[in-house]
């Protein structure tokens, strides 16, 4: 079975996408890695795909169609590339997250407000690894609005962690979540003084 290239069923805006083999400019020299994590079926693949400038890709990390990491990309100028990686949400595949955690500048924890508990392992894992993150509630039409305060309390988040809502199907909304993360990192960067994270 070929699961290396994965087409999203539908995106709300049929924006023309470059070929999946689109190379980077020769000047590309710096890549920055952001993770999109969360429980099963919360819209991680959708968010990575809608935010990305390339057609959604999946990098096989094992055998079987589900053991793959979503890959998205946004180039910023000629030298800088933002990569988005979305490991699968099922618990038994969580070792994949361990493999992608190193070297990540930050993460988006995507949550479904009906199943907040499903995101506990992701939040725990990021905290343990010292990876800064923001939380984005993916607004499914049938999901009830969840006040940010309730979400914060349930996930037991420090006040410094930004909480936003999004529609993972919309590129503008997905990129807005990434902007929230990057601004959060930018605000905290000069003051953060942690020991370097160890390579595994």
């Amino acid at each position, binding site marked *: 079975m*070929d699961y*290396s*290239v994965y087409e999203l069923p539908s995106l709300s805006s049929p924006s023309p996408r470059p070929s999946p083999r689109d190379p*980077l400019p*020769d000047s*590309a*020299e*710096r*890549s*920055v*890695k952001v993770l999109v994590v969360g429980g099963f079926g919360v819209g991680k693949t959708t968010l990575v795909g809608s935010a990305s400038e*390339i057609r959604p*890709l*999946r*990098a*096989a*990390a094992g055998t079987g169609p589900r053991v793959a*990491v979503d890959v998205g*990309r*946004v180039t910023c*100028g000629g030298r*800088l*590339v*933002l*990569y988005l*990686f979305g490991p699968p949400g099922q618990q038994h595949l969580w*070792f*994949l997250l*361990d*493999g992608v955690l*190193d*070297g*990540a*500048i930050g993460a988006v924890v995507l949550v479904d407000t*009906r*199943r*907040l*508990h499903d995101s*506990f392992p992701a939040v*725990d894992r990021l*905290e*343990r690894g010292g990876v800064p993150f923001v939380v984005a509630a993916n607004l499914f039409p049938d*999901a*009830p609005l969840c006040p940010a305060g309730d979400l914060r*309390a349930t996930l*037991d988040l420090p006040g410094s962690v930004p909480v936003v809502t999004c529609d993972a199907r919309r*590129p503008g909304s997905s990129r807005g979540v*990434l*902007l929230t993360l*990057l601004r959060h*990192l*930018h605000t905290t*960067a000069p003051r*953060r003084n*942690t020991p*370097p*994270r*160890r*390579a*595994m």
Partner: protein
Amino acid sequence: MQHPDAPPRSARPGREERTARAATAGDADPRGGQGPPAPLRLVAARTAFDLATLVFATSAAPADLPPEQAALLRACARPLSVAELSAHLGLPLRTVVALLGELHARGHVELRGTREEQCRAASHPDPTILKALIDGLQRL
């Protein structure tokens, strides 16, 4: 699954342990030694490669190069990440990393942002880079 209108949801457990850990942060391995067993790791610990490492061919494929390595070298005639190479060639990450290791050892590819560099950059984010990413995303 929890009903949306259910009364106060239980918060994420382990709060006390996390607070204690935060107090001693910096003393111990932040991963708490809880990494997965080695065979399950996505990319082997001692490779130079991260998913986001950019790979760039520095030479054309010599005639004696095994076909899989030659295909990989062709795929990175322009810079591309390890993850994209895996997806484009339909090869598992592990395989791509092994093949790239051989190409790198023979001097056929250049790496930008090795695993170690990515880890260093992530633990001390450069505000200039962050600002460039913010500006880039805003322009889209």
